[in-house]
């Protein structure tokens, strides 16, 4: 274990679950942490995670489950895109992480005997998801927040809340600090550090409306990308099958609703040939629809997994029902998610948090009326590219897919997946710059399994945090500590950021505040609509090319935008406008990755390339930013040395993939029906 000088400081950017877990681990290693966040850390986006956190547990184990099966499910769920060794290590750590959270006081739901209760989740046939009501993310975040507050009270953590990360400071190829801005006083300054951990989450806001919180715009990651960090698998964006449409955001309806028995259906009439067609009374009182006129399409097509097929599959099926088959409820883009057959007491104990959200924002009672839901942009599997060092388990050749419930080939010893404590783990291509949590592209491949996100956040913090401490102790910082570096490196970075800000402020023109062509909020809204239309459930070459061209148009408008606030105090327009430029950069990487990846895999579905193409594309998409903001994309090999790729069917009855019609390129940026306005789109 690393023990380092008490004065050495590490910067953590982002106070969600990954940032807080990392902070705790770094402090325990004898380091001081400066923790930066645009919001008070307790309000980070991790609070929105609902369903739970996966881990092998004693009950599942005795039924034949293992950490290895969890690993295998995650690789298969991610459609064989993830590097395999890191996933193995994460699955092996999961039970330890649950124990730790339990010790920290997380109120996990309990069985009558007092053990931790478990629920079923997507992509598994075993109950392996631990949960605290339906607000598990909130409860986990609070537990970590409390521990960090304890360290803060002891003087080991300094919080910089309401500070916005502007840039990493790179000196001699190594990250030695950051530039940040106090978003109240608008002061810009440099901070020295021996290492910097980015834990800044995803980028849902490039889609305008998504299930993400308002700060999840990807700007922090984009600023590292601008300074030379690689961005990987940008095109792998998870569209969650079940969300509640809304005017300002699309609110998540957790997968746990299906895990606890929720059934997805639409009113439909079964034809003589066994196929289903639209129902004349669809959209009227759902309780009046008899059972034989309800099409439970997931259960019918996937008898083995039913409603708990992974997210990309459920999303495509719902999209297909609504958009292609015209069988959405009331012929709109919505299907029923039905819990009304479950006992109310049971639902309250397990799902009250999310059912309350539905009730509050829709005004209908989900205990007695089926919920109306539709897919929404939810999670970014891609993120900053990071390294890892393989652990001790290296079979001579990859094993065939694990047979569910069979004995695992290895135990779950620490260090078999990744080399524990190695400073390279979770390090970006820039020395000393790390990425933890959602902003780290590792683990989830082309599709994340439900309840694996909280796990990857905490795993990065605990496991990779040790590597950061070792880097500080033994790596470049031990020879050239940041305090000895020339002031000029820091001053120069501050000057660059100040110049960027001045350029934006100089664009203030109150008289043109309402001019839509150059208003940043309008440009942001149009960006969201464009990305939603071109880069969500269905992606085609021509539409993506058009998208890239439109991104260029938006960038041209961005370059002459006008702000309506010249204020030197809490200038939110400035923060938003600055981030918009970063969002355009990331959008380009997403669209270009989607265009270049000429296959279908996980969340990435190309009707013009319907099959998975392992020979060419079982590879990481690596984006590097060109000076004009566009992405240069290449594909690099992955580590697939543990499990052989197999077809990812989830036991589907009819093996042909659902084939939603591609959206045809329109002439304006306004979404044209039948493109779902609820998958994303502007505010």
């Amino acid at each position: 274990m690393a023990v380092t000088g008490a004065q050495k400081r590490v910067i953590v950017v982002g106070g969600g679950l990954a940032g807080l877990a990392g902070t705790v681990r770094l402090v325990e290693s004898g380091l001081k942490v400066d923790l930066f966040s645009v919001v008070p850390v307790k309000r980070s986006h991790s609070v929105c995670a609902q369903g739970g956190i996966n881990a092998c547990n004693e009950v599942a184990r005795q039924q034949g489950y293992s950490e290895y099966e969890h690993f295998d499910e995650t690789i298969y769920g991610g459609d064989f895109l993830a590097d395999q060794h890191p996933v193995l290590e994460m699955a092996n750590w999961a039970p330890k992480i649950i124990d730790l959270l339990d010790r920290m006081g997380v109120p996990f739901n309990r069985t009558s005997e007092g053990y931790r209760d478990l629920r079923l989740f997507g992509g598994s046939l075993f109950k392996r998801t631990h949960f605290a009501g339906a607000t598990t993310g909130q409860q986990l975040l609070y537990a970590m927040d409390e521990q960090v507050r304890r360290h803060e009270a002891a003087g080991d953590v300094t919080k910089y809340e309401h500070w916005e990360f502007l840039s990493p400071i790179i000196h001699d190829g190594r990250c030695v600090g950051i530039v940040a801005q106090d978003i109240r006083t608008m002061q810009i300054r440099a901070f020295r550090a021996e290492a910097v951990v980015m834990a800044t989450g995803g980028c849902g806001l490039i889609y305008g409306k998504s299930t993400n919180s308002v700060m999840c715009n990807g700007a922090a990651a984009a600023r590292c990308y601008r300074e030379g960090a690689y961005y990987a698998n940008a095109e792998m964006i998870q569209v969650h099958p079940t969300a509640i449409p809304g005017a300002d955001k699309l609110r998540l309806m957790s997968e746990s609703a299906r895990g606890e028995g929720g059934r997805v259906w639409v009113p439909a009439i079964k034809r003589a040939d066994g196929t289903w067609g639209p129902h004349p009374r669809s959209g009227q009182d759902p309780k009046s629809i008899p059972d034989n006129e309800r099409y439970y399409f997931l259960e019918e097509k996937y008898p083995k997994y039913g409603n708990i097929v992974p997210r990309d599959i459920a999303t495509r099926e719902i999209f297909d029902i609504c958009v292609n088959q015209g069988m959405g409820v009331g012929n709109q883009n919505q299907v029923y998610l039905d819990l009304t057959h479950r006992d109310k007491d049971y639902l309250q104990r397990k799902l009250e948090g999310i059912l309350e959200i539905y009730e509050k924002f829709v005004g209908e009672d989900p205990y007695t009326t089926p919920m109306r839901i539709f897919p929404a942009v939810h999670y970014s599997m891609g993120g900053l590219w990071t390294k890892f060092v393989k652990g001790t388990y290296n079979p001579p050749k990859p094993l065939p897919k694990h047979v569910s419930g069979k004995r695992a080939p290895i135990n779950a010893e620490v260090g078999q997946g990744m080399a524990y404590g190695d400073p390279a783990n979770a390090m970006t291509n820039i020395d000393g710059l790390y990425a933890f949590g959602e902003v780290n592209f590792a683990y989830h491949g082309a599709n994340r399994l439900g309840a694996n996100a909280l796990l990857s956040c905490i795993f990065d913090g605990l496991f990779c945090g040790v590597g950061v401490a070792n880097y500080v102790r033994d790596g470049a910082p031990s020879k050239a500590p940041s305090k000895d570096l020339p002031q000029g490196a820091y001053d120069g970075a501050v000057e660059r950021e100040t110049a960027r800000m001045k350029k934006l402020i100089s664009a203030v023109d109150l008289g043109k505040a309402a001019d839509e062509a150059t208003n940043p909020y309008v440009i942001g809204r149009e960006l969201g609509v464009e990305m939603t239309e071109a880069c969500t459930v269905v992606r085609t070459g021509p539409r993506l090319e058009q998208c890239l061209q439109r991104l260029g148009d938006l960038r041209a408008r961005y370059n002459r935008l006008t702000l309506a606030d010249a204020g030197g105090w809490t200038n939110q327009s400035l923060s938003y406008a600055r981030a918009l430029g970063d969002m355009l950069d990331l959008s380009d990487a997403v669209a270009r990755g989607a265009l270049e990846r000429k296959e279908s895999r996980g969340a990435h579905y190309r009707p013009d390339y319907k099959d998975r193409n392992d020979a060419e594309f079982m590879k990481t998409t690596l984006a590097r930013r060109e000076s004009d903001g566009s992405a240069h994309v290449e594909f690099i090999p992955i580590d697939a040395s543990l499990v052989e790729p197999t077809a990812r069917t989830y036991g589907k009855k009819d093996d042909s993939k659902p084939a939603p019609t591609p959206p045809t390129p329109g002439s304006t940026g306004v979404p044209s029906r039948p493109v779902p306005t609820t998958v994303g789109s502007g505010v």
Partner: protein
Amino acid sequence: MSSTTPTAPSVAPKPGTRTIRIRVKRCEGPGKPERWEEFTLQVSAGDGTNVIAALQRIAAKPVTVEGKNTIPVAWDSGCLEEVCGACTMVVNGKVRQSCSALMDTIAPNEGDVVTLEPMSKFPVIRDLVVDRSRVFHNLKRVKAWVPVDGTYDLGAGPKESPETQETRYVLSTCMSCGCCLEACPQFTKQENPETWDSAFLGAHAISQARLFNMHGTGKQLEKERLEALAGPGGVDDCGNAQNCVKVCPKRIPLTESIGAMGRAVTIHAVKKLFTLR
């Protein structure tokens, strides 16, 4: 766990659009004068427009009802689904999260006015943004954490009955939004952080002390928490107005927590008296 669920808000079945007015109390920064600005907004029944969507639309076209171009309103928000607490403000005179304030409920008719004001118990940063650092500071005063021996793998935590878990879970859903403090007559605005440690803690912090005293390991700091609650600004400062529990968006039984902690502080004081040497 609470067995009551709120009744569904009655959505106005009015067809077509309506024009509503949004009045915002504005202030450019600490010490700057306050002023009101009014905007109009077209909404339609069932479109889901909430206060946040309204503010977003105003930001994209910041023109007042008089036709004057203005600076976009500053406001706080985060999750937009009432689990982060960021967007708390005073909407039509009532403190709440603005994300769950739907226009169909709060301004159902043509010409209805929605007033937006910052919380009054915290220093205003700008417009609707306030500084709630004191809420988090008060969590330190009651040591609202479980003192674990670090993050190494030491096995599971204490076993727990479903009843205790259910009680703790509800207490643990507190998002430090500050509604209970805004509504409390005893909790007053403190501009100077030096007075924070002697001023009233507020319902949320007292309830958090109860939460951690209920946990098998959290209990180890029970005495220190009770000392904090017995000191200046502690549980005795509660005036029993019971406003806190009425405005809590998570329906946390705050008055129950205050009662429980009041009794615990008394017992602790009596015990101390008899162990005096």
